[in-house]
């Protein structure tokens, strides 16, 4: 019997985990089964142009479709005979050379959606494209295997759908200090000191009190962990690098957090793509560089897997504004040092055999990546979280 079954059978179910005294009891009967592996998810929001990030520099179709925005062969940092990195991605090319990186090509799903928010929804909930789920896949991970909101932290001011489950939610902590300060308002503390918990039933008001208690203790826990954590490297000054810095610091503290969620926006490059994408890839790569060195230095790289995705790729053919429109399948980057298959996991799909919209056809379903991460990395049963079984990939 695992923790969730226990919860269900005990008929106290959903909101029980908010009551601190019960948490202690649960810890006793259910020793840590999860290990201390951590997953760091990064979303490049807006739809990163994967084809100009990992470039098919020997492909005539690539250059024919992108007369003004293709990356010249000479500028590409070559990795294989076919594919190479954008020059801003040099730090990731180094990770690739060191055997710390796997690139999955053509990741997508059937009948791709090209609206940002709908496609983001699909990635966040792990749904089919014709299915609307109201809970996120990380949220459902918490529903099934979590104890506390801080088991999944989003480095932001508010929570993404991915982090919201049926009974449990992650917590957003962009700035652990500010979060803590808010939670420590003396008035709230007094209310929490005085409220009568005997009458906290399952009704809505009881739920509010319980969430307030969980928020206060989570904010406090994250703040205290954050205080003891450290960074061993300097990070760039931008906001994304700060997210990575906070993440590394929390990881170094030994915090009981399985999943971190960060994002970098602005990839919706409909016009003047070359400059704007370069600027963003610089930010991404420099921040990842600092983050990985920091983890390595502090001995936490072994237990951390970094996964970068985007809600969709972009059209193969450039548009009239020297940009690209919303596309479909895209690449996903996996960084870590326990990878089973290094470098390119699979070949890039054909640039001449495209779907009806002129987009790359997918060959890897993104949910099989989730399934692999859940089963092989976090050692849980993915079918309970994705509500369906997917075959594993072999990258870890």
């Amino acid at each position, binding site marked *: 019997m695992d923790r969730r079954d226990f919860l269900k059978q005990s008929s106290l179910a959903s909101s029980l985990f908010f009551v601190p005294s019960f948490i202690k009891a649960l810890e006793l009967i259910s020793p840590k089964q999860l290990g201390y592996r951590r997953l760091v998810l990064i979303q490049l929001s807006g739809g990163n142009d994967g084809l100009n990030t990992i470039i098919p520099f020997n492909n005539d179709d690539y250059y024919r479709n992108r007369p003004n925005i293709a990356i010249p062969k000479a500028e590409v940092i070559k990795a294989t005979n076919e594919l190479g990195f954008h020059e801003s991605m040099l730090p990731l090319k180094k990770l690739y050379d060191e055997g710390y990186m796997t690139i999955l090509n053509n990741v997508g799903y059937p009948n791709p959606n090209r609206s940002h928010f709908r496609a983001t929804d699909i990635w966040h909930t792990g749904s089919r494209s014709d299915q*609307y789920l109201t809970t996120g896949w990380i949220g459902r991970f918490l529903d099934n295997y979590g104890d506390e909101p801080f088991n999944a932290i989003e480095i932001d001011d*508010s929570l993404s759908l991915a982090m919201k489950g049926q009974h449990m939610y992650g917590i957003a902590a962009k700035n652990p200090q500010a979060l803590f300060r*808010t939670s420590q308002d*003396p008035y*709230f503390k007094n209310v929490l000191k005085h409220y009568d918990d005997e009458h906290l039933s399952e009704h*809505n008001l009881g739920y509010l009190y319980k969430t*307030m208690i969980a928020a206060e203790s989570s904010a406090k826990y994250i703040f205290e962990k954050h205080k003891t954590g450290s960074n061993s490297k300097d990070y760039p000054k931008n906001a994304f690098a700060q997210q990575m810095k906070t993440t590394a610091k929390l990881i170094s503290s030994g915090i009981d957090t399985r999943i971190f969620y960060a994002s970098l926006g602005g990839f919706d490059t409909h016009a003047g793509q070359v400059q704007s994408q370069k600027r963003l890839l610089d930010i991404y790569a420099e921040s990842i560089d600092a983050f990985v060195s920091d983890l390595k230095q502090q001995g936490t790289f072994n237990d951390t897997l970094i996964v970068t995705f985007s809600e969709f790729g972009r059209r193969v053919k450039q548009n009239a504004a020297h940009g690209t429109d919303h596309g479909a399948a895209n690449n996903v980057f996996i960084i870590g040092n326990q990878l089973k298959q290094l470098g390119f996991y699979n070949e890039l799909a054909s640039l001449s055999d495209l779907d009806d919209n002129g987009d790359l056809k997918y060959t890897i379903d993104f949910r099989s990546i989730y399934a692999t991460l859940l089963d092989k990395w976090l050692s849980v049963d993915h079918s309970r979280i994705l509500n369906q079984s997917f075959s594993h990939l072999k990258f870890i």
Partner: protein
Amino acid sequence: MKKQHIQHLYWRTGFGATPTQLEVLSQFDRHQVVDMLFQNATNLTVLETDTSEIDHLTQYDLKTKSNRKLFRDVSTKKLKAFNTLWVNRLVTSNALLREKMTLFWANHFVCRDNHILHVQQYNNTLRSHALGDFGDFVKAISKEAAMLKYLNNKQNRKSKPNENFARELMELFMLGEGHYTEEDIKESARAFTGYSHNYEGEFKLWQQQHDNGFKTFFGHTGRYDGDDIIDIILKQRQCARFICEKIYRYFVNENLDEARVNELTDVFYKDYNIETLMRFLLMADWFYDGKNIGVKIKSPIEFLVGILKMVPMEFKNAKDIIKIQKLLGQVLLYPPNVAGWEGGRSWIDSNTIMMRLKLPSVLLSNAKISLTEKGEFEDSFKKYYKQRSNDFVKVEVDWVAFEDQFDKVSTNDLKSILITTKLNNGTKSYFEGLSKTSKRDVCVQLMSLPEYQMC
């Protein structure tokens, strides 16, 4: 009418009643009070933002890149302006019921678009049909430019039907999951082929793309168009029931009461008149049952507008109104997906609960909540509040209006005006032990309680 019942009625059909309203309305009976709600909702005042920067642009002007960019930029900016205009409308409108219903329907006929003119038109269609005939309402929605785009009906052609709209029409707008077959979707999608709109946002049926053939739908066969399909669905009692369940959850209680929903369905199925249904609901004794009062978690918009109605204030920077909505988890015009906001407990997570508890003091008292206990000279948490400057939002609170409004209200009565649910026992004794030096302080204290989140 009892003040508690008036407050309940006004929370469910609006954003709470002010002390003055409570005073005045308590002299009338339920019939009169409900009647006034409908009276006030009769007039339709469309909601419009100034779009003169792009109004003159024609279809031909948009062939140039620079004009397209101008249009896009202005549209994005004006969508935000329209959002704050809408919030302001909710705070100030006298047509409470119409506005609350508009908000309800906006989360039923969920739609999202970037084109300000189409968004505005859509929003006003919701407003104008909010209390009208449900069949006409659905037909109007099916022909709205924003909806034609949102659910891809614009791409629905005779040669290549797109089933998205037909599916959602049944699943989300009229019947609910499991009350139709895949075949029904396929056939009805054909009836909506050729639906499109012109540059002005008016509906156009594109004859060459419309499938004029026979369709078999729910056991009937004919050369149906979209309106016919909607009429056939209306004949299903399930359609009336589906809407009544949603109305019950939103206006009465999240937990359905089978017998009550049946009563509502009987009324609605007769002629699908939304006003008749709402009048029946608001007049029903059971609407005022204790078990239905103060048991709903306010939506972020209900929470925010409720505060603004009690204590008028001016935001120095309109963007802050959107920032607050975002942090609370509900930005008007930006629903999370086609199913809309789920509501209820899903509004509440660790971050939003803290934001909710903190917001009243941030807006009203520079993030400070008075916690001097009776007999204490100085509160012991001075240190926490010292050196706090409020750079989160810039607002100017109209305390004169507040004092005016609450002039005749005793400090004790403040609680029953602001809180609709029973205070937790422990919280109640803590609150009662606080020194009550000013109504402002007490107002902030009450609004900063979990109980204030309920309506």
